[in-house]
């Protein structure tokens, strides 16, 4: 009897707490008594997320992944990952009677015989392009605002792995229709792998199940594409988001924002509405693009055949940087030594591209080592306030962009009536020198912007109003910034170059010397934030400039 009474009273309380009505309350009670979910709601329901447009980039990535899962699942119901040969007998007349793989034929059927099939294919492909792009932009946002600093270094690495996996998903998916273009892409992969010393020939042989192209590769890539890679991606996304919850989101410097708080809107209801709504907007935009613009028209390329190829072929955008790097290698980079072939024209590409992306991955640890900064950072840097980091980023972007544009060297040559050689030579120069130039310019621009910020804090901004003083002198009235705006301009971390100090044995080790050198490189040009003293002095010195009567 007692237990029944207790339960009833608990029910009564639940009903009493929620005035929305009997059913919702008892359903919530039913679930909570079996899942303890009220704890999660208590923890997460009013969790605060800061607002900024740049925080949406990661959301775009997440939502495109969901769109990819939805459209991809639809496609798996029709696509057949077999390289067995059939004679095409579908609705697309120009390819009728042509032998092709079952993979290609089923992709043709999705496009031409299933209503809405082409739409789902295009949604899938466009969303994949958006997925990689959004991850890339999200990474740039993280980098340039210093969001990778402690405690978020590991989450940066997880995000980086997700970026690599997204490209792997893209490439494996691109190869599945087994059309002429994707087959040539695989041919290039085969050539790349064969150029790897010692193991290359065998790796290619095992990957393709014998000689290229074989009849296994599409099925194998399919397993990776729909099972292994997505499973890893889902697990890593879960970890990535879990870390966001654990760390709480970063915020931009602003009045009231400190390293100990997070300011924004609660998950319920505002973020649920805005983020949930944003998912539908992203989905809607992808849907609109897929309804209006063709992507990967395999029916124009035809089935894979090792002999023909069309001019002006382009990989999907995210593979461009690697393809471009291959084009930039000058002639003759290969030699034979001790009866073995060393394909430098391939190894150098793999090493340089590999080093570049590994540098991206470990950058947070490098910067942390240079600054020795072990504090947690939850307030973002404005890019100008970390000039050397921003300049390094600009150099990296320039390097990537040069490689990437090299993937379109032939298109540039034909469209702008240039010589192929001229385009390649120019891009070779921009790849090597561009990053240095970008570093220099960006660093100077950042320092100039910091100086400008100081100027605005100390003397206000130019109001455009010219006043004639009693003595006949003309001055421009400067409008002071309010204290909230001012805080945004002065609140940033400031670092000094590292002073070399001998250790306990009275020695200065080579590692410390390197670190001091890097620290000098990072911080010797620095603009310090305005201090209280400077501000009061500025106010005292120039009353006419900062007051607007």
């Amino acid at each position, binding site marked *: 009897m007692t237990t029944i009474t207790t339960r009833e009273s608990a029910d009564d309380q639940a009903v009493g707490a929620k005035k929305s009505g009997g059913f919702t309350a008892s359903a919530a009670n039913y679930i909570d008594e079996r899942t303890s979910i009220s704890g999660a709601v208590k923890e997460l329901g009013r969790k605060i997320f800061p607002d900024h447009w740049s925080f949406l980039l990661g959301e775009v990535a997440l939502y495109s992944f969901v769109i990819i899962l939805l459209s991809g699942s639809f496609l798996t119901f029709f696509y057949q990952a077999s390289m067995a040969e059939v004679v095409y007998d579908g609705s697309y007349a120009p390819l009728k009677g042509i032998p092709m793989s079952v993979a290609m034929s089923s992709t043709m059927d999705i496009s031409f015989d299933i209503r809405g099939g082409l739409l789902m294919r295009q949604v899938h492909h466009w969303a994949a392009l958006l997925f990689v792009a959004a991850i890339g932009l999200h990474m740039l946002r993280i980098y340039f605002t210093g969001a990778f600093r402690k405690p978020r270094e590991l989450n940066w690495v997880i995000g980086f792995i997700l970026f690599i996996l997204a490209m792997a998903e893209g490439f494996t998916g691109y190869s599945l229709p087994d059309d002429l273009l994707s087959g040539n892409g695989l041919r290039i992969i085969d050539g790349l792998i064969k150029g790897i010393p010692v193991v290359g020939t065998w790796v290619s042989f095992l990957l393709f199940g014998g000689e290229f192209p074989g009849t296994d590769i599409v099925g194998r890539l399919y397993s990776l594409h729909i099972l292994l890679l997505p499973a890893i991606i889902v697990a890593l996304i879960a970890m990535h988001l879990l870390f966001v919850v654990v760390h*709480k989101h970063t915020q931009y410097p602003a009045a009231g924002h400190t390293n100990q708080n997070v300011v924004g809107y609660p998950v319920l209801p505002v973020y649920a509405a805005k983020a949930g*709504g944003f998912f539908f907007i992203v989905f809607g935009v992808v849907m609109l693009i897929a309804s209006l613009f063709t992507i990967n028209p395999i029916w124009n390329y035809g089935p894979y055949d*090792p002999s023909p190829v069309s001019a002006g072929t382009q990989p999907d955008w995210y593979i461009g940087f690697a393809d471009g790097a291959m084009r930039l290698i000058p002639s003759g980079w*290969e030699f034979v030594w001790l009866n073995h072939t060393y394909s430098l024209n391939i190894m150098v590409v793999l090493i340089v591209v590999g080093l570049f992306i590994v540098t991206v991955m470990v950058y947070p640890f490098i910067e942390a080592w240079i600054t020795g900064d072990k504090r947690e950072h939850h307030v973002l840097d404005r890019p100008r306030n970390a000039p050397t980091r921003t300049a390094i980023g600009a150099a990296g972007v320039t390097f990537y962009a040069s490689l990437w544009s090299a993937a379109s060297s032939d298109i540039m040559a034909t469209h702008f009536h240039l010589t192929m050689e001229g385009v390649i030579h120019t891009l070779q120069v921009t790849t090597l020198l561009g990053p240095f130039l970008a570093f220099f310019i960006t660093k100077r621009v950042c320092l100039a912007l910091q100086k400008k910020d100081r100027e605005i804090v100390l003397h206000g901004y130019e109001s455009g109003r010219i006043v004639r003083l009693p003595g006949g002198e003309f001055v421009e009235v400067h409008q002071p910034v309010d204290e909230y705006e001012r805080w945004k301009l002065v609140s940033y971390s400031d670092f000094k170059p590292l002073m070399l100090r001998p250790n306990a044995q009275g020695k200065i080790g080579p590692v410390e010397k390197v670190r001091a050198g890097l620290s000098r490189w990072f911080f010797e040009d620095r603009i310090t934030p305005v201090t209280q003293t400077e501000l009061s002095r500025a106010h005292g010195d120039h009353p006419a400039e900062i007051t607007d009567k």
Partner: protein
Amino acid sequence: MAKDDNGAEDVTAADSPGAQLATSAASTAVVTRDALVNPGFPPHRPRITDLDSKEERKAERTVYTLFYVSIVGSVFAIAAYMAFPIVAEDPGSVRLNNLFIGLGLTLALMAIGIGAVHWGKALMSDHEGVDERHPVRGTEPVRARAVEIFQQANEESGFGRRTLIRNSLIGALVVFPLPAVVLFRGLGPMDQDPVALLHETLWKKGVRLTMDPSGTPIRAADVTLGSSFHVIPEGLSEMGHGRLEEKAKAAVLLIRMDPSDLVEQEDRKSWSYDGIVAYSKICTHVGCPVALYEQQTHHLLCPCHQSQFDVENHCKVIFGPAKRALPQLPIAVDAEGYLIAQSDFTEPVGPSFWERA
């Protein structure tokens, strides 16, 4: 937000326990005791929907109208599915089907999205909340307890003490995945040697050069000056199993030039026939088909990475990332006037590989 890494009395610098670690002198962050003070939150500014009930009702109308529009979009997409069927052999019908289902879905999705965001921005409370942050690292008692648990587990199991057990376990764990690695040998056929396969193609003495893809043999007399042919070995087009693998090695480009334009090495003079030369079509860089022939300059261009080969000079590389010339197929003419191969290629075709040299 100047931070104090010396854990001193500065208000703005009072950081988490993480900051105390930073006092280990390594950090080069500058602490300004003279820093400006965070002024706190600016005053809240109400929105127009907070002030004007007419605007509020308007926003409400917009939101529910958008949700109804979404329903219209979904119904439209279903109707389009039925109204725009795919007609066999009519690509235009595919386009309409794609377009109208897509536009219906776009409307359905966008209207939900814009409606929800508008609801959130215009009508839901816009008072910002503040959450407090705590250091990510566990509190000292929690960390101490975690260490204690590991120590206890170590003691109870003897993991650190019984080194024989521990080391043999590590050994077993290292070795046990090896069979899985070995299993992957089965990815490629057991009875084939990739290196040997890469050294041979379908070409051999007497095999006729035929057109790709029809397989029609080519008469030397039919190859006019300046023309080029995509060529496969006789019999390849009828092959069932392994056709593409063989084609990927045996594809050849046949070109007839004015014999006086050809600069031939002494030992290769007999490899051409009356200005007709045959070269492997597989790029020596990474294996794309070198399919573009510039008739005026006698250059071959690979469309993948723009390596260029000079047909006049045994297809030596004149630009691009490739290193080696395209292998030449020695050709002759049989009794009936058809072009035939004198032998297989004298070197492996296609991209370089470790065991090639």
